[in-house]
């Protein structure tokens, strides 16, 4: 799911996995002829991977002039606004800007235009690799990748954070630490249900999650589930829908947030690595030395954000009575114990 991000599917659900299958919808979606015209390709092996009402992800092979390309379509039906994140065309522009700065991300092949008549969205390369967290964290095939993944994540984040902002300023919102804290405060207040631990976290963060001297591109959801990993290591950063301009430490803190350690709490980076290694990779690539202590408020903030997203899931449950949303509502307390461990217990 994305909460922003996690609430979009499963906790560690890979975007490359087929989910719901209705054969008629999959073989003959109504946009297929328009998409073939727009791409100048014959579309083969089309499979719906995931998505809700406002966004779909499809995998297919695009064939033209004897060449076949493995591709992904991220698409929304025309006129249906996304419920979270930036427009798909902006997402495509961010990915291309990041690639120009040396970030490993899938190459965008085509951005759908209104005259294409195939909806909003874009087509990108489908790269080999794994996104499912439990496989990356447990399978023997990834043992070598795991050992260097924290450093590679540091390098990749350093590249993301040096992307030229000029062209992106017109496209992306600027949301720094204090702005996010204020926004989550408003959300929390609106839910009107007492969480003393969240109150304590807001108090703890107010003097610590302060305005940064640096203002950079922020991926916004850089963590296992959105990272494509092969046995050789980090292949690409995916799912750029929460990209914004803000404090680069947000990205470093988010992948260290307790919920994204998948139960391996002593491996602070994503359940697989050490923060010192990530920061070493970051410095190698950017020359910028980040102190672990400065990342800490963003790790704490990640758990607070997650906790408030769980409160939001309860609001969703009130509308659709989904057992899944109901269950996530009861995951507030996981984030509370993480906050207690960090703020009261002094744990990382």
């Amino acid at each position: 799911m994305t909460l922003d991000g996690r609430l979009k599917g499963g906790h560690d659900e890979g975007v490359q996995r087929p989910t719901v299958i209705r054969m008629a919808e999959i073989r003959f979606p109504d946009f297929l002829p328009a998409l073939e015209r727009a791409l100048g390709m014959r579309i083969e092996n089309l499979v719906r991977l995931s998505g809700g009402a406002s966004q779909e992800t499809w995998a297919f092979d695009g064939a033209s002039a004897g060449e076949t390309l493995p591709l992904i379509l991220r698409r929304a039906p025309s006129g249906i606004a996304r419920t979270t994140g930036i427009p798909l065309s902006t997402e495509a522009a961010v990915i291309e800007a990041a690639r120009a700065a040396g970030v490993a991300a899938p190459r965008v092949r085509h951005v759908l235009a209104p005259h294409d008549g195939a909806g909003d969205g874009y087509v990108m390369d489908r790269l080999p690799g794994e996104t499912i967290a439990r496989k990356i964290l447990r399978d023997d095939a990834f043992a070598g990748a795991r050992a260097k993944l924290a450093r590679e994540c540091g390098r990749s984040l350093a590249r993301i954070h040096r992307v030229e902002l000029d062209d992106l300023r017109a496209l992306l919102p600027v949301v720094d630490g204090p702005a996010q804290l204020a926004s989550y405060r408003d959300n929390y207040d609106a839910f009107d249900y007492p969480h003393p631990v969240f109150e304590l976290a807001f108090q703890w963060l107010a003097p610590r999650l302060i305005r940064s001297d640096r203002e950079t591109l922020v991926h916004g959801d850089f963590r296992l589930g959105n990272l494509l990993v092969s046995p050789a290591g980090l292949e690409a950063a995916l799912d750029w829908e929460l990209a914004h301009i803000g404090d680069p430490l947000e990205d470093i803190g988010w992948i260290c947030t307790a919920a994204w350690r998948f139960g391996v709490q002593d491996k602070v980076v994503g359940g697989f690595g050490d923060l010192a290694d990530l920061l070493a990779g970051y410095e190698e690539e950017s020359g910028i030395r980040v102190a672990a202590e400065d990342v800490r408020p963003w790790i704490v903030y990640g758990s607070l954000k997650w906790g408030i997203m769980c409160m939001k899931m309860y609001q969703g449950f009130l509308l659709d009575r989904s057992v899944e949303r109901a269950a996530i509502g009861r995951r507030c307390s996981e984030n509370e114990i993480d906050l207690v461990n960090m703020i009261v217990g002094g744990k990382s």
Partner: protein
Amino acid sequence: MMDQPSMRELVEAVRDFIEQKAMPELKGHTAFHARVAANALGIVARELAQGPQSAADERERLAVLLGHDGTLEELNRELCRRIRDGAFSLDTPGLAEHLTVTTREKVLIDQPNYAGLKRR
């Protein structure tokens, strides 16, 4: 007095039915949601067993911290206000202990296997 089985036995029987009988016959998203449903009944069973004592203890601690009695929700709302306006902080005697114990007991009901519980 209600007849047997007890509320807890009923909940556990339904959970066992979902896990052992229904789930093997289900596929895809429905199987996943059945797992989520069974886990939710696990929360209910644990709350039935541990919730009353846990809530009574929480209320007693809150009454001591705040200096007066009230319902659990009233006292929690007041604690939130006092933390927010700065009257209470981690320097307030008993607050850190109260939040630690209360949160641990919530997680023991919601997700007793959660990794964060084991970090002491």
